[in-house]
């Protein structure tokens, strides 16, 4: 059973979309922690 083009596209775009949000998430989190004095 071979994965279809559609399923492969969905898998890759889902992973890439999620991974692309991670740097934004981390930078937002550190900004919030820094503003609240919660870094360390």
């Amino acid at each position: 059973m071979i994965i279809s083009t559609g399923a492969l596209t969905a898998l890759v775009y889902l992973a890439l979309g999620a991974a692309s949000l991670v740097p934004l998430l981390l930078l937002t989190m550190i900004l919030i922690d820094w503003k609240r004095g919660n870094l360390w």
Partner: protein
Amino acid sequence: MSYNPLAPDTALVILLLFGLLWVAFGYWLGRKNKTLDDYMLAGRNVGLALGTATAMATWVTSNTTMTAPQLTYQLGVWGMVGYSFGAVGLLLFAPLAGRIKEILPHGFTSGDFIRRRYGLSAWRIFLVISLFYALGWLISLGMAGGLLVNALSGLDYHLGMSVILLVCVSYTLLGGLRAVIATDFVQTIIILLGVIWIAWLVIDNVGIDTMHRDLSAGHPMLLQLLFPAAIMFLFNNLLFGVGEIFHSNVWWSRAFAFRKKTGTRAYLISGLCWLPIPIVAGFVALAAPSLGLNIPSPDMVGPMVAGRILGTTGAVIVFIVVFSALASSLDSLLAATSDLITQDIYRGHLKPDASDLQCFRVGKWVIVGLGLFTWLLCLPRLTTLASLLYFTGAFVASAIWPIVFGLYFRWANGRAASLAMLSGTGSGLLAYFQIGFYVAALVSCAVSLLVIVTSSFMGRHGNFDFAQLAAREND
């Protein structure tokens, strides 16, 4: 392996520039370290952002960035999906991290917990398992550093390995866990931006439809969903990952270092954020046939695809990503292993009345010693030493149940935990040599579970009082 897309001089300049940056950063952060808690555990008050990033960065090793494409090239779609299941270890450790901080608020190492929960025998067995694994990982990372730098740029193995070790030892020594965590944050962002950029460019230049068409014609196995070896790999990788994270002081020291009620959330978010990374880093390998690349060795498929699409820029990005991934794991391992040796061997066995200040000083020497030890063992370039890590699966998986039951249930006792770790490791090694690497962790974990449950209930039933773990020692 003669594919060197980067000039050795350029590689050395990148190593030195980034190295200087990390060391200066480590020195700047280390100025705030006044106590043992500051140095070993970053003041025990690390927030959610830094906590999440450090857990993620440590789990993104050079394996994730280099082996994910290699496994995709060898095992197809299941290779990258199976690798991403390594995130389960982080997700499952999330509740444990909260529990660890709650019941052992003044603890330093995973060994502290085993000693106070199970007694001396179990502690010593656990230390052997833990140190064997940590040293195996250190050597394999040190060697991977030299080999990868050599493969990507042709820079001499010894020079590359020595510079990477020197940089990591220096900033860990100067800044302690605070430097490790802060550099991890920056390294995570670098790694993510690098792999995401390359992945988008591969889609833009090749396209998933073209990749699928060319693979269907020439390499249909890579698109196959019923690939037994790949499915086996998925389960073994999952259990190995859980065993690694549950027992290793790398992850326990972070649980102690995070602010109260932060550990669970930090590990949960880091697991979810880590999940897509092996797929993003790995799927680029599927573009190799469409690009007409002749891959001399599967472990070079990632850099070769990036190099073909981006030229020298791609090679530079891959080099920086790999260096960041190596550093983010090496520094964590140096710090956590030094904590284990200082707290459990020096204070635990050699000098029980050592003060925090003495341990603070000894900890620094231990980091230097570990760096030297790793460097010496990496010098002969015996790749068989790096393969040590493969059979540590049998060791680490045997510690999963003693830790889980020890954290949550009163009935688990020291004798049962010792027997479980010994029999799990023994049977796992037997399975490794008689059957294959893919069953070692599975057998070890199953036997350890059976032994700890039967031994605890058949023998003298334990009735442990968790409140006694909360008291501070060495006061």
